[in-house]
């Protein structure tokens, strides 16, 4: 009876859905965002009371609430960066070199935020909170560029993953087609050859579009102006949408090629 119970418990645990790490990271991020919103609201109230009454009590309360908010702000940004790292690890469209490079950038930023969060504990005055906050304000453009660049590369990687599969299937189709050539009429061979040329040309255009996205993303990583980062992010997003459309068309062409290979005429 005991053995059956253990077996049933194990089967139950195996049947539970396994969350991807990024899904758990996203839930953590959403939770920290909720906590931050509450802490920020408390900070705004305490700041308002201090600026209005300028009493020692309001000053002490403002200091406490500000420090809590600053620590939570660092925690929020940290969990967002952790979400990006998990998504980078799971993205099959990025090369190992690209993944390592972006992960390295994000880890640098996570370490900065960890130092910031540790330093909040030592702040003893409202002037201290202001100068502490200014460190993040000064560093924020670089942090923002890393976040936007990583997000755009993740979107590009999503398309590249399907393009890699397309390339594999196209190669398979060409191999099967060339193996069947002796059994095909010259007209059929000519039709198949034409399709292969059309597909190869369109694949070339798609490759150029994806390369343009990659180059734009490198600009995002290097900028120190958040508005510029946003503008290039938008440009990348448009190009990624165009790449998806091109991939859809070339996949339809591959479907036509295979349909043509199915028949003798």
């Amino acid at each position: 009876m005991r053995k059956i119970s253990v077996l049933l418990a194990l089967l139950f645990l195996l049947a539970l859905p396994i969350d991807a790490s990024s899904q758990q990271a996203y839930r953590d991020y959403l939770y920290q965002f909720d906590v931050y919103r509450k802490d920020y609201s408390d900070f705004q109230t305490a700041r308002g009371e201090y600026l209005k009454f300028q009493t020692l009590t309001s000053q002490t309360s403002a200091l406490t609430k500000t420090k809590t908010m600053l620590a939570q702000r660092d925690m929020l940004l940290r969990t967002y960066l952790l979400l990006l790292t998990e998504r980078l690890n799971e993205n099959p469209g990025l090369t190992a070199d690209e993944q390592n490079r972006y992960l390295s950038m994000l880890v640098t930023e996570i370490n900065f935020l960890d130092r910031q969060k540790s330093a909040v504990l030592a702040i003893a005055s409202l002037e201290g909170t202001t100068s502490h906050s200014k460190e993040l304000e000064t560093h924020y453009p670089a942090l923002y560029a890393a976040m936007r660049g990583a997000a755009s590369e993740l979107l590009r990687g999503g398309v590249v993953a399907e393009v890699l599969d397309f390339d594999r299937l196209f190669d398979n189709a060409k191999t099967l087609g060339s193996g069947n050539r002796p059994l095909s009429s010259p007209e059929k061979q000519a039709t198949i050859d034409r399709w292969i040329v059309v597909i190869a040309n369109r694949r070339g255009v798609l490759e150029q579009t994806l390369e343009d996205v990659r180059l734009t993303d490198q600009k995002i990583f290097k900028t120190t102006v958040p508005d510029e980062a946003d503008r290039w992010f938008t440009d990348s997003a448009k190009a990624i949408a165009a790449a998806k459309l091109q991939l859809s068309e070339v996949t339809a062409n591959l479907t036509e090629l295979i349909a043509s290979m199915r028949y003798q005429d």
Partner: protein
Amino acid sequence: MEKQLQTPVQTPDQPVPAIPPAILPAQAGNKRPVWLPFLVVFIALILAGIAIVLQIKRALFTVPSPSTSTPAPTAAVSRPLSALATDSAFLLLESSVTSLSGRVSALSVQDSTLAPPILDLPLGF
């Protein structure tokens, strides 16, 4: 007794009866108007033209009535399959491309979960 037609015997005393001018046969030498044949041809051409125009109009503007006969089912044209059609590698390729096509259609190029938090950084003290 036979009745015999007796032709009148012309005698010098009996003149030939005059035939009314109305039933006089056309005499050689009577002249028709020159323009009469041309008029006839012209009228004939006009009538022919009218008939052709009417025919064309009928052909252009007549809506054909729907066929009331039962259409017979046409035999499906079967295309000969190639040697690849039953090859397992080809069938796998076919299904893989169908699967890829579905994934590409469903591919989302926007991801709201990647939007960074919007923060108000300056403290305002």
